[in-house]
């Protein structure tokens, strides 16, 4: 079972437990000998459901798994009162406490694992694919013209080809900062594949590739992108992390949608610059990926 499966399992566990606590609190509290604590059990239930949904549906499960850890501690506190001598159901309360302890250990492991997965320490590897309703030749040609890529990849400011197979990349950092590197094309198979990697002295070590496969049934091209970023340690590393946001996968998904829009429709769907009853046409809360 990998980390993600454990996380999903914890999410469903939260949901199930939460629903039982909300719907039949008297059974749970009498089962554990918690006496008349239905209201508390019910609140705990709502908490479990919220973390369960968070884990299952949110892009950053780490924070939600941490919320489960907090929840486990609350459960243990409650159960420890049930473990007091004189509780006739001490046995089942003890079993429940043991179960919660076990789950807490799993939660802790999982939450550490998930937050270590962030961009700062390890760098990241992203894979995404999309189908574009054009032959591979067209998309290969578009991509091979590196200077045009910043139009679809909003974190890039420019790519300038200064020699055959060599280009200079400038990425937008937070608060007006910039990250720069030179890159070389390491493999170039016309209409099939382009691969590149950064050269010595890059602000961020990175490598990428894009493959073009003819999609079945004449449905155009299956485009597969892979990117690897290994940011340096320290302050610059943090800058890189900010650059790709909390969610590099989502960023790449957005970029690939833009590529598809541009190639299929000739333009990129936009809302920036439209009217609204507030200072800006786009929303700070919901449009982070379409604001430039």
């Amino acid at each position, binding site marked *: 079972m990998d980390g993600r499966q454990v996380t999903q399992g914890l999410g469903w566990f939260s949901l199930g437990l939460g629903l039982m606590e909300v719907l039949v609190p008297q059974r749970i509290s009498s089962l554990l000998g918690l006496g008349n604590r239905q209201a508390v059990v019910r609140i705990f239930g709502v908490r479990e459901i919220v973390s369960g949904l968070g884990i299952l*549906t949110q892009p950053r499960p780490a924070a939600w798994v941490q919320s489960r850890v907090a929840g486990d501690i609350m459960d243990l506190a409650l159960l420890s009162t049930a473990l007091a001598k004189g509780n006739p159901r001490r046995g089942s309360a003890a079993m429940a406490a043991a179960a919660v302890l076990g789950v807490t250990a799993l939660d802790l492991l999982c939450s550490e694992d998930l937050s270590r997965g962030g961009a700062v320490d390890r760098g990241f590897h992203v894979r995404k694919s999309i189908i574009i309703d054009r032959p591979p030749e067209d998309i290969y040609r578009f991509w091979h013209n590196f200077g045009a890529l910043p139009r679809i990849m909003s974190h890039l400011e420019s790519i300038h080809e200064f020699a055959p197979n060599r280009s200079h990349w400038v990425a937008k950092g937070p608060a007006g900062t910039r990250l720069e590197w030179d890159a070389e094309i390491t493999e170039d198979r016309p209409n099939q594949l382009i691969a590149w990697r950064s050269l010595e002295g890059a602000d961020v070590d990175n490598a990428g590739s894009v493959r073009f496969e003819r999609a079945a049934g004449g449905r155009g091209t299956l485009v597969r992108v892979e990117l690897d970023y290994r940011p340096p340690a320290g302050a610059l590393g943090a800058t890189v992390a900010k650059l790709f946001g909390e969610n590099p996968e989502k960023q790449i998904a957005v970029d690939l949608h833009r590529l598809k829009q541009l190639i*299929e429709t000739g*333009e990129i769907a936009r*809302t920036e610059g439209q*009217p609204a009853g507030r200072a800006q046409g786009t929303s700070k809360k*919901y449009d982070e990926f*379409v604001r430039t």
Partner: protein
Amino acid sequence: MKATCWFGKNDVRVEQVPDPEILNPRDAIVRITSTAICGSDLHLYDGFIPTLDKGDILGHEFMGEVVDVGKGVNNLKVGDRVVVPFPIACGNCFFCKKELYSLCENSNPNAAMAEQLWGHSPAGIFGYSHLVGGYAGGQAEYAQVPFADVGPIKIENGFTDEQVLFLSDVFPTAYMAAENCNIQPGDTVAIWGCGPIGQLTIKCAYLLGAERVIAIDRVPERLRMAREQGGADTIDYTAVDSVIDMLREETGGRGPDACIDAVGMEAHGHGIQYAYDRVKQAAMLETDRPIVLREAILACRNGGTVSVPGVYGGFLDKIPFGAVMNKALTIKTGQTHVQRYLRPLLERIRNGEIDPSFIVTHRLPLDAAPEGYEIFKHKQDDCIKVVLKP
């Protein structure tokens, strides 16, 4: 210009905002002459659709006059009178080529967000939350219309605004809801909800050959319109013990051949079931109240079709899926592929087969949009459909 903006639950205001501009080559700007409030807008007004932000311009059912076009739009010119479909569709992608326009892959700039909730993103929609694009809507004096070379249909003079306005949404929605039922001679169709969608769905079901339509609601004037204008038999669901039993009774025990849910996520009801859904929805433990959907599934005859034009947003509880499986039901649903129906339905209006304007009960100036929402939501003053005139 003036525009109807969302500021929160039960809070819309007409505000002064900047005029829209051409942002992309395939855009057009339309000066709006008529725009309606839709049942879908009530879901926003009632706060049940997530990802709205203060200041969002609402409205997705509008028509008007073209006042500017981008250089990529060759089929429209300044001065043309057009009706604008509510889904935004590129005309180039896999889904648009299959005429599944409300599933366009290229029109939602926030597709990645919708993918996280639903697995995949539908098309962008005017004025209908950031999940489906965060586009400014059409309850305003002007609107910017993307892919104007694909969506808007030109209307020649000779039609009033109200005769053609509903091509933008409710008429095609009703038509698709009935078409999805694959109606055969002799069929009985049951339709829950006698709002604008229900009223037009009754007409479309008969147009497509239904033998008998049974319409269900509780609002007396809506039931009366269903009988008098639509020729349907009606059931007031507050006056019977069980709608399902009534339908079984009326169909010799077999059940209606097709059941249409024209109510959606905010269905009303009574008794324990309603209380259960109200509480769960309020506690955010379920997002929708699927009372009608459950009834439609249980009422439908074996091998029949449940067609769902009513809007749902998230997670629904206690759906009797065992009945769907064991009765071999077909479920058909979706945001309407409006672009597909514009020409054939305009033709039906021209031929006099149908005049959808009979649903209009209220005509108000744009400034009165907040009152319009209140009147429509609470069905005051026998309200069925509100049209705003900017």
